[in-house]
């Protein structure tokens, strides 16, 4: 029995990175063996956050799951509401009014905008550029103000419902969105100078954390991780939901393969979101925002199954919902991109990387532990 050189206790140091570590995205940890400061082996561990979302959903009425699903993703809760609502609508045949579709797209795009602002700044934050991280969070907060006004809450919006959305836009809301967009747009060049045009950032991210284009198919990579390596996959374009087919946009893609390329994708996604939000505001039709639902406590969704998917800020995000025709879902399975990004891909990318680049690489994959352990 020969000793595995990657975990040889005589040659390597064995340490846990996380779950209590500011550089880790969420509550997960990475078990690492390293030789000097070069990692020889890494294993992703999850289980610090397991709240049993999927099982809980089988115990609750269809409508009662909306306050639950949003909690699967803190920065971008709306994709969960959207996926779950899309599945219910497909199973019940409930129609969504046109205006509600536009408002939903607006909400989804605002959420993506907020996440990318935070993630773009956060990428710099992992390198010690705290100012950029704070600015990203500040910009996100301006968007959260909008969410508070629209939905009544900053984080868990519980706004998208089967058959539409819960409330119409407040009077003058379009103007407030435009004000926020303008304010952020004016200040984005400052952030660019601090992050993209920064020698430290470039040195630490270019040619670091390379995702080879052939890995995209091998692992099934999606979102900015894939698009930073030349992929043009985007659910908004490939299988348009809501009103994305009525909006004019191109899929953002970069060919650098490294962390810098992924940061650049996020930065360009911010611009894309601004453009999409403006398009939505100018095309927003009038009309009702919700279809009346049956008695919620006696609501039986017809038996069937459906896989709904949307493009989240991290890539394709899906819900597989099964109904047996009863008051509660029979099974809900949440499929987030972090499963492949944070487990097989991260474990592979970390081998040979520097200890100092662990959180740098991890954040560039925007891993989200609740997607892995639902």
């Amino acid at each position, binding site marked *: 029995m020969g000793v595995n050189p990657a975990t040889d206790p005589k040659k390597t140091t064995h340490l846990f990175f996380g779950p209590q570590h500011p550089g880790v995205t969420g509550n997960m940890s990475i078990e690492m063996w390293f030789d000097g400061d070069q990692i020889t082996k890494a294993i992703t561990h999850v289980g610090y956050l397991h709240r049993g979302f999927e099982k809980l959903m089988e115990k609750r009425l269809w409508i009662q799951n909306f306050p639950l699903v949003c909690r699967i993703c803190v920065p971008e809760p709306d994709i969960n509401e959207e996926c779950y609502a899309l599945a219910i609508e497909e199973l019940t045949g409930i129609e969504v009014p046109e205006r509600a579709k536009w408002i939903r797209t607006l909400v989804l795009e605002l959420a993506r905008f907020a996440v990318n602002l935070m993630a773009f700044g956060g990428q710099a934050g992992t390198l010690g550029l705290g100012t950029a991280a704070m600015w990203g969070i500040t910009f996100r907060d301006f968007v959260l103000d909008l969410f508070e006004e629209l939905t009544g809450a900053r984080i*868990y919006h519980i706004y998208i419902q089967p058959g539409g959305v819960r409330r119409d836009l407040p009077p003058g809301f379009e103007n407030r969105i435009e004000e926020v967009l303008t304010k952020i747009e004016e200040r984005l060049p400052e952030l660019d100078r*601090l992050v993209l045009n920064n020698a*430290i950032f470039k040195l630490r991210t270019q040619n670091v954390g390379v995702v080879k284009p052939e890995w995209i198919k091998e692992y099934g990579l999606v979102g900015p991780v894939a698009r930073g390596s030349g992929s043009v996959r985007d659910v908004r374009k490939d299988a348009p939901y809501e009103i994305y087919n009525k909006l004019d946009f191109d899929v953002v893609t970069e060919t650098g393969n490294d962390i810098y390329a992924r940061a650049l994708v996020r930065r360009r996604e911010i611009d894309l979101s601004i453009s999409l939000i403006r398009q939505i505001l100018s095309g927003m039709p009038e009309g009702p925002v919700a279809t009346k639902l049956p008695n919620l406590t006696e609501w039986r969704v017809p038996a069937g199954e459906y896989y709904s998917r949307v493009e989240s800020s991290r890539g394709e995000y899906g819900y597989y919902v099964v109904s047996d025709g009863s008051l509660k879902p029979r099974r809900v399975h949440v499929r987030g991109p972090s499963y492949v990004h944070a487990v097989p891909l991260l474990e592979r990318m970390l081998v040979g990387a520097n200890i100092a680049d662990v959180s740098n690489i991890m954040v560039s994959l925007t891993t989200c532990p609740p997607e892995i352990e639902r």
Partner: protein
Amino acid sequence: MKFTDVISPFLAWSRAAKKVDTIPYPNQQNPGADRYRGFHINDTSKCIGCGRCEVICENKAIDMVKVDGVEPTKGDSGLRPKVDYGRCCWCALCIDVCSTGSLSLTNKYSWVTENPDTCVYTPGVDQKAWDSEEKGFRQENDVLGWAGSPREQMEIETPEKRIENFDEVVKGYTVDQAMEEAARCIQCGLCISACPAHMHIPDYLKAIAEGRFVDAVKLFYDNNPLPEMCGKVCTRECETVCAMGYQGESIAIRWLKRFACEQFESLADVLALEAQPGEPNGKKVAVVGAGPSGLSAAYYLSRKGYEVHVYDRLEKGGGVSWYAIPEYRLPADGITKQMEVFEQTGVIFNYGRDITAELLADMENRFDAVYLAVGLQKPSDARIKGEDIPEVKPAFDFLMNSPDKGEMLTGKKVIVIGGGNVAMDTARTCVRLGADVVLSYRRRVQDMPADDEEIHEAMEETIDFRPKTIPIRIERTESGIRYLYHEAKMVDNPKGGRPLPKPKDDVEHAVDADILFSAIGQTSDIEFIPESMQKEMKLKWGRIIVNDNQYTGYKNFFAGGDITPGEGDAITAIADGLRAVKGIIDRLK
């Protein structure tokens, strides 16, 4: 890598001279947005304690609790929501489903307290700083419609067609419609206390929603042996308190009861009752009157092993509520179907027996207990000058004698005086027989004691409504009669209650007609009760006063239905029968 990449990050310092974006808490606090989901408030006077918020709360943060100063009444459970902020997740589902819209969230989100117990409180009862806060998440039922929905529409015959015959006006729900309608029920149970017979309404609505119609019928018979009749002509107090009625339309409880019964050719087959369940207990009870009250008492007594004999002066069971209600509201085949159930129970019926003092004295000796449910037989006097003219007839007698099979009134002019169900039935029957009908009532239309539905349908059927008309006298003319009246104005009643009609002026208005039906109510006729017996009973205005168990105070005599003071409707009579059963069982122990 460019040289500027080394320089440009330092430009970030330019921010240092600009205004900060961070809020200097606690010196500055941002108020929540207008729609913010913060702490609860509850308008406890508007809240009816239906408990919908408790049911929808996925965190079990809401408990319905009894609070001081709010007493349970019909349509109000007396309970109010208590919120545990250790569990609440501010999703506001409770707000959007609140049936009255009394519950709201304020935009207050910050609260510091030394006592953790105060974080569990009853909004609207326990005083909080944000009680009068006007901003926050409010229900918008016009957007979502979760707090109340419209009723499943039932097909109704058009007025033009229905006045041509005596076919039923309402056509009944289809199976799909009924299941949809029943599924609207939120299972709050407020209707149970409003129903005089306390029927298991939420349970049978659930059974109907799930397609278990046999179960529904069995649940009806738990405390109402005349469900099909009640499904057609009940006064439906349940629907008036229905929580769904506040922001939508109340559940069509009555139509659903009718629907479930109509699913079966024979109710007797559904129930499959044994003639005598268990051992007969050897006790005999006489029931006088085969109306709803008498039949109910007979049914439940026989289920308990009593030998029950029912006496009625008519040739068939059912009483006035069946005989006097026209075919278009209550067709006869439904009656036969329900009577089969009674025959199955082993109750012995004695029809065509005049109820006399001798018979009553005989009963006193032969039976262990007697239940008097004779109803009201005598039409009230109209107290109008000229009411002794032969063309002036009591509407009640007219309805009792199967007018649909009687002579046509084509081309005749009929006047009906009254505003109750009997007046509506008479007027609508006459229209179907081809007459022109004028309906005269002292007060306003909204004061009429008849069902709103009846009034509405009567108005559609070419009946000339003349509300606010005070009768003066009836005169004979060469061709018929002339009815004279004053137009009335409404004045406030000094004793409270409904406004009183007073003549507006001295002008006498006249209508010529061939027949006039007076439908101003019936009174009791208790001459058959021997005086010696009457002395022992408490009587008031010809009605027998009874205790909570329908006991008259005389030997083992019980009474119920219209002969005792009460609402005067079928379901109250049935409830009286149920109470009498309890009373009789207790007394014969």
